[in-house]
């Protein structure tokens, strides 16, 4: 049984769904883009493969396009089916870049170390706020994390006393009061799934009723078509058909919009770094093409792409630290 054609088909589906999804970037806050303009060097050519996160898929494509404008002789292939596909690809050397929307688990690092003798290196390249999406017609004003947990999880580790299955139980009235909440989420290969499970569910288990979708665009598309839906996904996938629910870390606290400011001051509870993992042997330089790609990512152009895709850029001290590590 070969799963390569399936890989292709799923890629095609995600692509098709992307075409269906009108993308708008969050223009509400124009964050300050950090980083220096990219300095082109000579002698960069060859091909790189990127296999990993679906959340980072569009962003990797944007970076690849920008990078290709700098170096015409470079070929970049981007495949994004879920963060959990990155470690096997790095270990098998089928990819040089492993974008991930969560940190590697120690079991994944172990497998990498078993092959190479040293751990993989992570570069935080962007900041993402994980948003709870509902249909654009949904009147909900905000949710607390314990409520989100009680909607999505059967373990309810955030301590909500009762299970939440209807919109009426989170305070909606009228036609919404008695309608069941239809849950959408990502498949388990996704870093978004893992991050959500760890931080919103406190490592509890998802309800069996959560409909697992093969991509973030597919989650958003499902919610657009399903009036009573709720789902989670990276903020970069917001469309006009859905809206993001302001969240509170604890019940009783004020609801907070997912914005750059609120992720920086930590009041929005579900934010995370997005990473690119690379195979960097200790004491040895990176291959020139990977090094230049990472430099491009941390350049002003690369960070502008982050904003263009709807995510948040990383701050200046972090960029400096990472650029030092690249050399």
């Amino acid at each position, binding site marked *: *049984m070969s*799963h390569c054609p*399936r890989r292709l*088909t*799923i890629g*095609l*589906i995600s692509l*098709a*769904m992307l075409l*269906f999804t009108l993308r708008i970037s969050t223009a509400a806050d124009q964050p300050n883009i950090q980083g220096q303009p990219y300095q082109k060097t000579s002698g960069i050519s060859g091909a790189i493969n990127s296999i990993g996160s679906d959340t980072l898929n569009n962003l990797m494509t944007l970076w690849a396009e920008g990078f290709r404008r700098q170096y015409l002789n470079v070929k970049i292939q981007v495949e994004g*089916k*879920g*963060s*959990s*596909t990155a*470690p*096997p690809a790095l270990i098998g050397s089928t990819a040089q870049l492993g974008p991930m929307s*969560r*940190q590697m*688990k*120690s*079991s994944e690092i*172990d*497998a990498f170390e078993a092959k190479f*003798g*040293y751990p993989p290196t992570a570069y935080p390249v962007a900041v993402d706020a994980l948003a709870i999406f509902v249909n654009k017609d949904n009147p909900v004003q905000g949710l607390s994390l314990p409520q989100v947990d009680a909607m999505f999880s059967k*373990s309810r*580790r955030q301590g909500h*006393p009762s299970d939440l299955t209807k919109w009426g139980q989170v305070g909606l009235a009228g*036609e919404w009061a*008695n*309608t*069941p909440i*239809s849950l959408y989420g990502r*498949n*388990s*290969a996704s*870093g978004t*799934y*893992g*991050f959500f*499970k*760890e931080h919103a569910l406190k*490592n509890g*288990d*998802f309800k*069996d*009723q*959560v*409909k*697992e979708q*093969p991509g973030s665009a597919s989650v958003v*598309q*499902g919610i657009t*078509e*399903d009036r009573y839906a709720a789902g989670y996904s990276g903020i970069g996938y917001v469309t006009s058909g859905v809206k993001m629910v302001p969240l509170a870390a604890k019940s009783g606290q004020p609801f907070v919009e997912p914005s750059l400011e609120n992720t920086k001051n930590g009041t929005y509870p579900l934010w995370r770094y997005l990473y690119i993992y690379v195979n960097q*042997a*200790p*004491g*040895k330089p990176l291959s020139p093409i990977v090094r230049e790609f990472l430099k491009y990512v941390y350049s002003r152009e690369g960070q502008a792409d982050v904003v263009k895709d709807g995510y948040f850029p990383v701050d200046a001290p972090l960029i400096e630290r990472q650029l030092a590590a690249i050399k």
Partner: protein
Amino acid sequence: MTMPTKPRWRAVVDRFAGWIITVGGLATIVSILAIFFFLLREVTPLFSAPSAKLAQRLTLPARLADGPVVLGVDDRRTVAYLLTAGGLLFVDLRSGQVVPIDMPAELKGRRLTALAHSGGQATRYVAGTAEGDLLFLKMGVSSTFASNGQRITSPVIKVGHPVHVVEGPITDLSYRFAEGGSRLALLLERQQLLLAEIDESAPQGMVRKRLAQPISGATSVALDATLEHLYVGTDGGRIIHLGLVNGEPDVIRGSYEVTPSSEAITRLAFLSGDRSLVVMTSGGAVSTWGLVRRTDDPSLWRLQRTHELESHAAPIVAYAPSQRVKSFATADASGRIFVHHATSEKTEIRLSNGSSLIMALAIAPKGDGLLAFDALGHLSVYDLHNPYPEVTFQTLFGKVWYDGYERPEHVWQSSAGSDDFEPKLGLMPLAFGTLKGTVYALLLAIPIAIFAAIFTSQFMHPNYRATIKPIIEVMAALPTVVLGFLAGLWLAPLLERLFPAMIGMTLAIPLVVVASALLWHFLPPRFTGGIAPGSESLLLIPIIAAAIGGCLWANQSIEAALFGGDYKGWLLNAFGIQYDQRNALVVGIVMGFAIIPVIYSIAEEALTNVPRSQIAASLALGATRWQTVVRLVFLSASPGIFSAIMIGFGRAVGETMIVLMAAGNTPILDWNWANGFRTLSANIAVEIPEAPQGGSLYRVLFLAALLLFVLTFAVNSIAEIVRQRLREKYSHG
């Protein structure tokens, strides 16, 4: 094409063709067997027996074994460390030598009376002393890389400033690290309990402390990861559960008897994840306990025994949890060591470490080694080989009581972004989903395909048949990805909106068809005469279209008339059915659409092959066309129709893309048409890219593939046998 005419050539070609066909047939059989054995080879390691063997035994000074001991080892099993009442020691396991360290000044001259680990994968420990002080330690092994890429491992010891909490010795303690205020539960002399919150980074540390009520006969304490539950074990064999919510006065929430014979509790500890309690007694009993919500008040908790493990024959004296899976090791006073897996209730490894008292145990971080330190000062290192502890026949196919669950359940939830997650690999929901999808698809496809086949082969005008059959067969050429995409994103929302209209159609279409047939019957021949027999049914097309159009137009009125204006609410109230947009009905329709051409094509072939002479004979004897079809043609063709259905079944069982896109992939056990399911095949497609090669999930997915293979193979074999029988009975001979 030119046919060779010479007899010699004909013989050569004949032999050549025979040879090619034989090779082709054999190759098919060989490749099917190869697939079977490949799947079997990937699956069998899951059920191999775990093993353990002594790798080395070092002799350390026996004075170390005087008092409590904690034992640890780094993830590469290069350096082990021991913290004992008599001091701190690092041992290089490769050379067997003690690693020289500077003994921290805080440890000198103090007598440690109780030791605890902060839980999880952290390397934080706390020690209580005979003087009532607490020492916070970070202990472990760091590994760095030299400029030449060489790995350097070195011991790490950091000791915080001692914090004086109480007068008199600390006899047992439980420790949870937190920035700004670690929480501790201490057991003091005369069964006093002390709860303390201590900021380890502040010079004088203490945030607050308070005495809880004394628990008579207390032997051990355990504070869980949520900091809301404290458990105390007693020498009378009871677990006392205290609630500590938001600093409110501690309340005894419950008291539970562990064994009927009231054996004293020797140790309380947690499984990895720090939620499930492991209780060990002086009689050697081992059990795990978890919190479940109380039925009378869901905001309160009750402790519930979840698993009973194999008992030791002597009091249990040492315990070590695995850091990644729900395994743990226990040792008794007679030197026996067991390694258990809590969820599967299996004791995987039984070791005898000699007859001396075991002071401490440790499981290596990667689960590949076990360390034991005994009263004679021996440090024994065992190699463990147990790569798939969570997979047993019972956990795959039976109900399992997972950590944190309220009851045993069938669950599929294979992975998470964190390490202490317990994979839940129950195949029942997936096997069930496969059957559910197949049944709904066949319910729709069999009647339509078989009736269509009877109609086109027996009733329809032969001119139309020549065009209809290829058109239906073209349906099979549609890629299932496209069908799945349409099902998930077009049909599912459409059906949700137009569900009342669809119910209306199921009533309206049969009605108008019967009505127009009656009308046709009574119409004078001058209206009906001009139409060729077999093509009158074409007139039904506009009538059915009108019925469909009418129902769509009347969608809202039907909803108002039949369901009181809200069909979802009506379904929920009348049947308790929760309508989900991605449901079995949608998949049934679309997957049915995908298998109709397969069933139709084979069934039509079989029906057409019934000899015309027999039909003519039947008609000539005075049977009507309907009688001829039902009593003769259908029976004669039944072997072929049966194969058609079985091939359709096989196609539906293995169908992947439609279910992947449209079924919602919810692993639930529910026959309800209004919610989704998750099939074995879609599950393999979704999860195989993330499954680490050779890991539990990877092999379980191969097991799922093997199940599908065996299922299809069995169904096809049975179908073939039944077909042969039917053919013998109703052969056209």
